[in-house]
């Protein structure tokens, strides 16, 4: 076949498709020649979006690596304030939600609408459990005064005390030498031991709240997307031939899982054990 004839053939095919609109399924957009091509284009777009998401989280992972390289001691002290059991529980919950998301896509490919709905509901439930556990962790840390800006480094908060036992107290050390020096923080860690956190530990908690916060935001968006997919699925919008939104929604959810797979060990597990 010569080069000159190629566009002619393509045009002829398109015209043939347009001549018989009844042969085209309703879900097939007019600029695609086949459902397979439409699914392929949608998935490629989703994968490029996933690549950009990785790069967005990558900025925070880069900040993490810089801090880890310059000041590893912070991690050894501060990781005692993160609960390994809660973090591990959240990991299992998210892994299970990824499993049910994958199974939802599978049953959608097989045309089992009710099974797809059930798996999507399981995924959404796990997402909610994840957020509840995250809420427990956050509120505990905020109570201890570990939120960046609360105790760490800000003179406005130097008098903050949360109970009578000196827990969550911001300590000003060496007042005469450096009156504007950021405070140390005395707080009870996850094992019940009272520890003194250096002022620069706010870098760790800043990273912790930013990384898990951005991830939590993605969990919320994922809940929104999968809820929409669930509603459309119950309405009968998807079939064996057309399940693209289920597939792409699940891909987004796997990305959320993927990020957490790295966040959990990097934040909870890398400190020096005692």
């Amino acid at each position: 076949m010569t080069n000159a004839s190629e566009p002619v053939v393509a045009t002829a095919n398109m015209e043939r498709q347009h001549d018989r609109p009844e042969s085209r399924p309703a879900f097939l957009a007019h600029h695609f020649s086949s459902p397979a091509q439409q699914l392929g284009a949608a998935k490629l777009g989703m994968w490029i979006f996933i690549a950009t998401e990785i790069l967005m989280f990558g900025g925070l992972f880069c900040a993490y690596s810089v801090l880890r390289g310059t000041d590893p001691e912070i991690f050894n002290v501060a990781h005692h304030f993160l609960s390994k059991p809660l973090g591990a529980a959240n990991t299992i919950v998210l892994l299970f939600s990824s499993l049910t998301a994958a199974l939802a896509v599978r049953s959608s490919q097989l045309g089992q609408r009710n099974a797809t709905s059930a798996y999507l509901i399981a995924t959404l439930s796990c997402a909610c459990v994840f957020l509840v556990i995250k809420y427990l962790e956050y509120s505990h840390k905020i109570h201890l005064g570990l939120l960046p800006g609360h105790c760490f480094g800000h003179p406005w908060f130097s008098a903050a005390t949360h109970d009578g036992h000196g827990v969550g107290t911001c300590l000003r050390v060496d007042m005469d030498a450096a009156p504007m020096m950021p405070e140390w923080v005395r707080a009870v860690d996850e094992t019940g031991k009272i520890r003194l956190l250096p002022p620069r530990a706010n870098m760790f908690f800043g990273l912790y709240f930013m990384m898990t916060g951005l991830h939590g935001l993605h969990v919320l968006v994922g809940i929104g997307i999968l809820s929409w997919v669930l509603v459309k699925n119950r309405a009968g919008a998807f079939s064996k031939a057309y399940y693209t939104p289920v597939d792409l929604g699940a891909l987004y959810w796997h990305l959320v899982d993927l990020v957490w797979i790295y966040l959990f060990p990097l934040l909870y597990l890398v400190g020096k054990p005692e």
Partner: protein
Amino acid sequence: MTIESIAQQGTEEADEAISSAGSYWIVFASLVSLTVLTVWVSYADFGQANIVIAVFIASIKALLVALFFMHLRHGNQFHSLAFVSAFLFLALFMLLTHDDLRTRGEMDPFYGGTVTPRSGQAAPGGEPESAATADMVPVAKVVP
């Protein structure tokens, strides 16, 4: 080859083979085992290797999720390319950031200027030469 056949060739693989439910459960079981392993290992101290072990196990888990749950094993190779290229650019980003930080220089405690830690010479792109540092930078340069 017509344009359409080329387009078809690229997209036919998107029509994925449907994996069995059992295989997904096996992948999930491996992921949970690796999670238990990484938590268990974190109670032992391997010094500098702690983070290497943690990231290595996390990468195996990420690979399992990408290959099986995200269908990269059966899917279009182009999707894998998009996915892997993100990590390549991330590596480039981190490499250049760390290179910058390592060669940026440190404050010299005696002279106050910015010097490279190894040579003791005035660091490029550090503190701008001011009235206070102008007379000491040449001194710092001759120190080997």
